[in-house]
């Protein structure tokens, strides 16, 4: 028992020193949130700080995402404050865990709004979390910036009924990935596809978006669903049609590793091409995925290796990596066991900047101008720069959806993800299914 209590203290110490910007939340429980204004030392004059709430998957599931999303978010806020904050006001970040549990996350969402009194919220890659929080964002009219949830519908035709336009998404999702990536696979890898995907919304949507386009172009699409936590893929791999040319897989975590490895173990890689999205092995080093992944094709949203990033972005990319503690190979500085979730974490870097631009453009002071703020942010056309190292990013007013470049990569014999083709963002665009311009 002593062993356990010793460890407990050590953890507390570690946790508090990491949370340098969350001084006041420790007092919050006692002071009921009122103390937040009084205890933060200002150097920016008498104006209250702008509060941004953030929650990520830090425990239970998808933690390889949460770790980086939280890290980059904190680094971005630090940089923002070092550069003078927003409109002369300091930015304060509140950071919580979703536990990959939508009901719990909704509680944290409410806590951030009602207790911490945040002005806007960002984060999470879990679709269920986003869905559960939509009614709250709509109710409290809080701008909600999605961290990385891949469900297309959230900026689709149901946007109004789901979140009323209070959801802003700068990153990719199943449809933009399909629109950007299906043709490369169709032209270069094969016309007969099998989708071996996780049997829930994310897997289904990828099969639908990619498969639909393949079939419309005259190809063939077969669906094989497997439970998201499948350990034994052989029963599903053997269902793959004998004449399939492209095996498209979509699983997360250890199942993602399992499917890639077992595809090779049963020898399928000899007669078909493997195609997948980087979401499956984000935050996992290719050396961990294993030599079996050599020759597999990935759709990335931002290259993992510095030398694969387009030359003109290098100055911005280097500074961004330095601020987040990442080296040139996409590993954490000082900790080569940890690999970045490079295709997802950039959203946390860009949002604070978009918020800054929006606030300074509209003269936003408090929640009364939230709709103007959202409108301004959703019409931004960002150019590559220190705050946008991924290249140009275009926000679309109609559906609050952002578009940036895609990359098709292949795993090389040295386990590096080599970029074969860069797909410009225009090729990833599709007709918006909703027009939120009149709503706000």
């Amino acid at each position, binding site marked *: *028992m002593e062993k*356990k209590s010793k*460890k407990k203290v050590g*953890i507390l110490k570690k946790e508090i020193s990491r949370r340098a910007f969350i001084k006041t939340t420790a007092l919050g429980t006692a002071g009921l949130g009122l103390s937040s204004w009084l205890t933060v030392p200002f150097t920016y004059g008498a104006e209250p700080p702008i509060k941004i709430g953030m929650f990520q998957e830090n*425990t*239970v*599931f998808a*933690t*390889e995402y*949460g*770790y980086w999303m939280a890290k980059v978010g904190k680094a971005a806020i630090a940089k923002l404050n070092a550069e003078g904050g927003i409109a002369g006001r300091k930015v304060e970040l509140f950071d919580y865990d979703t536990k990959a549990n939508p009901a719990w996350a909704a509680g944290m969402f409410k806590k951030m709004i009602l207790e911490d009194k945040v002005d806007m919220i960002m984060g999470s890659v879990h679709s269920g979390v986003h869905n559960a929080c939509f009614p709250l964002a709509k109710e409290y009219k809080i701008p909600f910036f999605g961290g990385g949830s891949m469900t297309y519908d959230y900026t689709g035709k149901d946007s109004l009924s789901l979140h009323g336009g209070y959801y802003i998404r700068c990153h990719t999702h199943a449809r933009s990935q399909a629109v950007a990536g299906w043709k490369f696979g169709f032209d270069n890898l094969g016309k007969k596809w099998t989708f071996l995907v996780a*049997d829930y919304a994310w897997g289904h949507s990828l099969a639908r978006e990619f498969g639909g386009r393949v079939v419309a172009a005259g190809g063939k699409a077969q669906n094989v*669903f*497997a*439970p998201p*936590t*499948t*350990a*034994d893929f*052989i*029963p*599903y*791999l*053997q*269902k793959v049609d*004998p004449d399939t040319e492209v095996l498209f897989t979509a699983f997360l*975590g*250890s199942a993602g*590793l*399992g499917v890639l490895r*077992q595809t090779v*173990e*049963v*020898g*399928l890689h000899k007669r078909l091409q493997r195609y997948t999205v980087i979401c499956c092995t984000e*935050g*996992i080093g290719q050396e*961990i*995925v*294993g030599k079996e992944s050599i020759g597999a094709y990935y759709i990335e949203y931002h290259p993992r290796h510095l030398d694969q990033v387009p030359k003109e972005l290098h100055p911005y990319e280097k500074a961004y990596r330095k601020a987040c503690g990442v080296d040139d190979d996409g590993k954490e500085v000082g900790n080569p*066991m*940890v*690999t970045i979730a490079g295709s997802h974490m950039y959203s946390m870097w860009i949002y604070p900047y978009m918020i800054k631009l929006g606030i300074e453009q509209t003269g936003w002071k408090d929640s009364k101008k939230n709709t103007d703020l959202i409108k301004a942010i959703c019409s931004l056309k960002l150019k590559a720069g220190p705050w946008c190292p991924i290249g140009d990013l275009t926000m679309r007013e109609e559906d609050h959806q952002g578009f940036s470049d895609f990359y098709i990569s292949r795993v090389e014999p040295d386990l590096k993800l080599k970029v074969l083709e860069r797909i410009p963002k225009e090729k990833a665009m599709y007709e918006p299914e909703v027009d939120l311009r009149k709503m706000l």
Partner: protein
Amino acid sequence: MEGLRVKLHSNQRTRFVISNLTVAILNGVVWGLIMALIALGLNMIFGLLHIINMAHGALYMLGAVVAWYFIELTGSFWIALIIAPLCVGVIGLIIERGLIRKIEDKPIITIICTFGVMLAVQQLVLMIFGGSPRRIAPPIAYRFPIFTLQYPLMRIMIALISIGLMSGLWIFLRKTKYGLWMRAVVQDREMAVGLGIPVNKVYMWTFVLGSALAAFSGVLAAPIVSVEFMMGREVLIMAFIIVIVGGMGNLEGSVLAAIIISLIQGVGSLFAPPSVATIFALGFMIIVLLIRPQGLFGE
């Protein structure tokens, strides 16, 4: 000519189905043996001692995690396979002496207690080991061809180890003094005390053995399922179900239960969506429980 082409095609189709079925049955049996091995440790603790150890999945996970560290250190899978269970056995010892000993006569408290241990252990591993999965390379990478596919030899090897271990345990329980003591303690604890059997020691060593077995199966499964802090969660419930449906403390029963469940799922998913196949497997278990609550081979 057309007729011939159609006939060839349907031959190809039948061959496909036959090859699928063969692989499904082979894999069902092999995977069932692997699952039985995972359930084996629980069969010791739960089946024999009737202690509901919710931390079983965590011990399984710890086996894989500890093995990972040893492989990083020594580069040898086989060394890790021996050492990791020993380490986890020690952890099991600590849990038994520190916690279980105090509450073993209160099954409900044991559930909560071991549940708390599971939560704590998982979090600790998350903080130290990290959240992303890591891999242990399989010591044997050979695959032998079967119809149009290949089948990894590693799985066959694990299945054989599973059979070997279970036979060994069967011999241990039936033919050795210690095994006799264990069976006596399970049958009638008070009588065992009266006969002079060191009951407390028996409990303790059985728990340690169960923990070590859980870790052992974790190390063996790791090359297939990857090492991850939550890997015990999925395995936990399945292990309980296998032990009960097979008959508590009954080794042959749990092997049969594991294989049947695995076969239903594997062969079933050839013809139906995987969720339906799993539901069928679960339905089968409900029927077994209702018809033979003592399990397939229980007394």
